[in-house]
C-alpha cells in the first residue's frame, strides 16, 4: 500500500496504472521471495536438533557451515566481518554459477542466478532471528561475495 500523495492529482485510469506498476514484481523479486521462504523453512529444519544458537557470530558460523553444506554442498571459503553488522561471505566456486564458463564474460548474465540464493540466505537469517540485507557481488565467475548487512536483530 503506497502513500496517497503518489496517486493524488491523477485521474482514475492513470492512478490504477501507477498502482499496478508499483505493485507488480519482477523476476528478481519473485525469485528472491521463493528463496526467502525456502531458506526460512530449511533453516528451521536444520537447527531443530541443535543446541540454541544465540550470538550473531554463532548464527553466521552456522549459516556458513551446516546451512551452506546442506544447500550448496560445500562450506564457504571465507567469512569476514567488520564487527559492526557487516559480514562478507565468500564462495570461490558457487554451485549456482558452475554452468557458466569461468572468467568475466558472463558476469552480467549471472546476476539473475544469484537472486534465489540471496533469498535463501536472507530467509535462513530471518528464521534465526536476524533481519538482514543480502547483496551479491561477483567480479569473476564462479566466485561470489555475499554482503550481509545486518539491520536489526529481532528479540
Amino acid at each position, binding site marked *: 500500500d503506497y502513500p496517497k500523495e503518489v496517486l493524488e492529482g491523477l485521474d482514475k485510469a492513470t492512478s490504477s496504472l501507477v498502482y499496478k506498476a508499483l505493485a507488480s514484481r519482477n523476476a528478481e523479486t*519473485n525469485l528472491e*521471495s*521463493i*528463496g*526467502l*521462504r*525456502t531458506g526460512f*523453512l*530449511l533453516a528451521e*529444519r536444520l537447527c531443530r536438533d541443535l543446541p540454541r544458537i544465540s550470538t550473531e557470530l554463532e548464527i553466521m558460523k552456522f549459516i556458513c557451515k551446516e546451512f551452506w553444506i*546442506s*544447500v550448496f*554442498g*560445500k562450506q564457504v571459503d571465507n567469512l569476514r566481518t567488520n564487527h559492526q553488522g557487516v559480514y562478507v561471505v565468500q564462495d570461490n*566456486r558457487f*554451485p549456482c554459477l*558452475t*554452468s*557458466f*564458463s*569461468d572468467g568475466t564474460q558472463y558476469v552480467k548474465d549471472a546476476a539473475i542466478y544469484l537472486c534465489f540464493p540471496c533469498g535463501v540466505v536472507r530467509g535462513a537469517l530471518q528464521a534465526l532471528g536476524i533481519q538482514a540485507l543480502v547483496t551479491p557481488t561477483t567480479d569473476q565467475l564462479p566466485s561470489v561475495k555475499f554482503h550481509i548487512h545486518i539491520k536489526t536483530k529481532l528479540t
Partner: protein
Amino acid sequence: MSKQQKPVGVDAKKMSSELFALTYGSLVAEMLKDYEDPRQVNLQLDKVGFNMGIRLADDFLSKQAGVPKCTDCRQMAETLSKNVIPAYLGVSATVNNWESGDREFSLQIENNPLTEFVEVPQDLTSLHYSQMIAGAIRGGLEAVHIKVTTTAIETPTNTVIKVKFIEVLKDNLPAGED
C-alpha cells in the same frame, strides 16, 4: 563450458531432496499468489513439467540403453513405473486402474518427495500440487511421439497421476514442401 577442477567430496549433480521439495513448495506458493487461481497454477506447473520432460526424455534414453521399444500402453506404463519414475524421483510407482480398453491408467507414486512437507489447504482442492510431475510425463512421452493427457491428483496417502493415451504422433512434412 570449462570444468577443470571438480569440487571434492560432493557430487555437483546431486542436491538435497529437502532443498528441492522446499523450493518446489515455495514456487507453488509464489505462483498461487501471482495467479490467484489454482487452475491457472496447474496449467503453468504443467508447462514447466512439459519443458522438463522433453529434455529428460533425451537424458533417459542416453543413459538407459536397455529399455525396449514400447508397442502398447501396458509396456509404456511398465517403463514409466519401473524405470523412469525411480530414476528421476527416487521412489517407485505402481500401475493400476486400467480403463477404456487399456487407453487410460493411473500411476500411484508412494512417498512422493515433492509432498514430503506439504499439506495443501482445504480451500485449494482444485490445485494439483504435483502437476509438474504429470507435465514431465506428458513432455517426455511427447518427445517419443506419444500424445497423452496427464493429471496429478493428491490423495491423503500418495500421489496419483492419471495418464490418458490420445494418439501416436506422426512426423509430417511441412505443407507445401515435397
